[in-house]
């Protein structure tokens, strides 16, 4: 087997064990994994941002433009650098400057400069959000609440027999559910006896929803853990030089020594 694959297997097994060791107790192995993880994660996002945004969207167009104009003025430049692709453009410099202005945030004296950048982003975001929210989460949801009852009614009065009864019941329950849940979120209303009851019913709807979300999640989480275990199991073989059993053993020995020692020193 390829060396990099074997090394990868050993590292993957080791890091998995380091992270899972936290479940037993906080320990140096977890601390290593924890800090390494931050470094790798930030490093990875950084690299992706550089190669997917900064280079193609800022560096390339700007440098292309600069090189083309340079070689127009001073012809010998083109002997050394040949701009790749189109003639480029300088406009990406504007958003880049705005972007850099955000960084002044960490220097209190000049942090006001960053306000210009934020004003730009936040204004755009708020303007985009208002009509879209009205459409998607407001108008469309009212429609969705009225429609089912309407469909029932248009299907020749409200039928009260058998399965049709159940659909009618569900559609009406849905409407009532929306209303009582909204009721729960009234803040400036002083609750009387009735409205208190209504609010309580609202909570039950919320509980059903939360329960459903909780219940559906269990499997997903188990599957992730199972996936990790499956990897560990795969890496046990001689092809990987028994990465899993050896590393488990090493971690156990480390635990034994480390916690054994700390138990003796601390009363």
């Amino acid at each position: 087997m390829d060396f990099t694959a074997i090394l990868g297997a050993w590292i993957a097994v080791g890091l998995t064990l380091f992270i899972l060791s936290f479940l037993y107790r906080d320990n140096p192995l977890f601390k290593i994994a924890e800090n390494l993880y931050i470094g790798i994660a930030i490093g990875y996002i950084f690299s992706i941002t550089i190669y997917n945004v900064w280079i193609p969207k800022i560096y390339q167009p700007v440098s292309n433009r600069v090189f083309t104009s340079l070689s127009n003025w001073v012809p010998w430049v083109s002997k050394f650098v040949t701009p790749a692709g189109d003639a480029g453009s300088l406009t990406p410099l504007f958003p880049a400057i705005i972007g850099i202005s955000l960084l002044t945030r960490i220097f209190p004296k000049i942090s006001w400069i960053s306000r210009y950048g934020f004003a730009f982003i936040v204004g755009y975001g708020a303007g985009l959000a208002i009509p879209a929210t009205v459409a998607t989460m407001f108008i469309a949801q009212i429609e969705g609440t009225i429609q089912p009852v309407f469909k029932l009614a248009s299907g020749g009065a409200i039928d009260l027999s058998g399965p049709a009864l159940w659909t009618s019941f569900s559609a009406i329950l849905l409407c009532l559910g929306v209303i009582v849940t909204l009721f729960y979120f009234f803040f400036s209303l002083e609750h009387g006896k009735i409205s208190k009851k209504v609010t309580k019913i609202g909570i039950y709807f919320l509980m059903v929803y939360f329960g459903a979300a909780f219940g559906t999640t269990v499997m997903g989480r188990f599957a992730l853990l199972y996936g990790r275990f499956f990897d560990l199991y795969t890496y046990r073989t001689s092809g990987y030089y028994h990465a899993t059993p050896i590393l488990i053993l090493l971690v156990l020995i480390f635990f034994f020594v480390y916690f054994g020692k700390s138990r003796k020193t601390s009363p």
Partner: protein
Amino acid sequence: MMLIKRYIPLAIVFVFGIMTLATYYIPPKLAQDYYLETMNKWINIVAAFAFLLALLSLFYSHYNKIKRKVDGWGYSIFVYIGFLVVVVCAIKSEGQLMTGPALTSLGWIFRFLYNTLSASMFAVLAYYIVSTAFRSFRIKTLQAFVLFMAALFFIIGKVPLGNVLWNKLFFWTNVSISQVTDWIINVPSVAAKRGIMIGIAVGAIVTSLKIIFGIERQYMGKD
């Protein structure tokens, strides 16, 4: 100075807010040619810079830990090691994860380090969800009971063994467990979620308005 430090930024928010809002009602081409297209392109670039702030903050925070030798400062070195290794590999592989069928070093890092660490941390949730369920699904109130029952239907209904058991025990109801869970998802939980959603929508609209009118300006920081 107040003008430059406060009023102009607030005016920018107002102007850009209203203009972007208007593009929703003005058919695309017009808005697009003169305003929205530039905005979309620029915002996308500006957003990439916000990340740089994270990077600086990270370095600063761990540099301080090491400098002041706070508890466990030694581990901070691993942050730098991890970061450097990834960036060096990224430069070496020019930001690509694969070359043809082969992994580049950046791809290797992603698969065996980043992915492993994320998946492991994610997998820890499996343990936590069990211990949470064990601790908190104790039926003390009617509310807790409703929560628990809803969860139980889904926990059982998701696996084949649960389906088999349900069919053995509750065959007389003539209802399969997937019908029960489907109904819960389609009726009561839609109602609850929609209630929350409309509440959030109203809150979001009002907050956006507060931002446009400069009433809400936490994001700008204090003077």
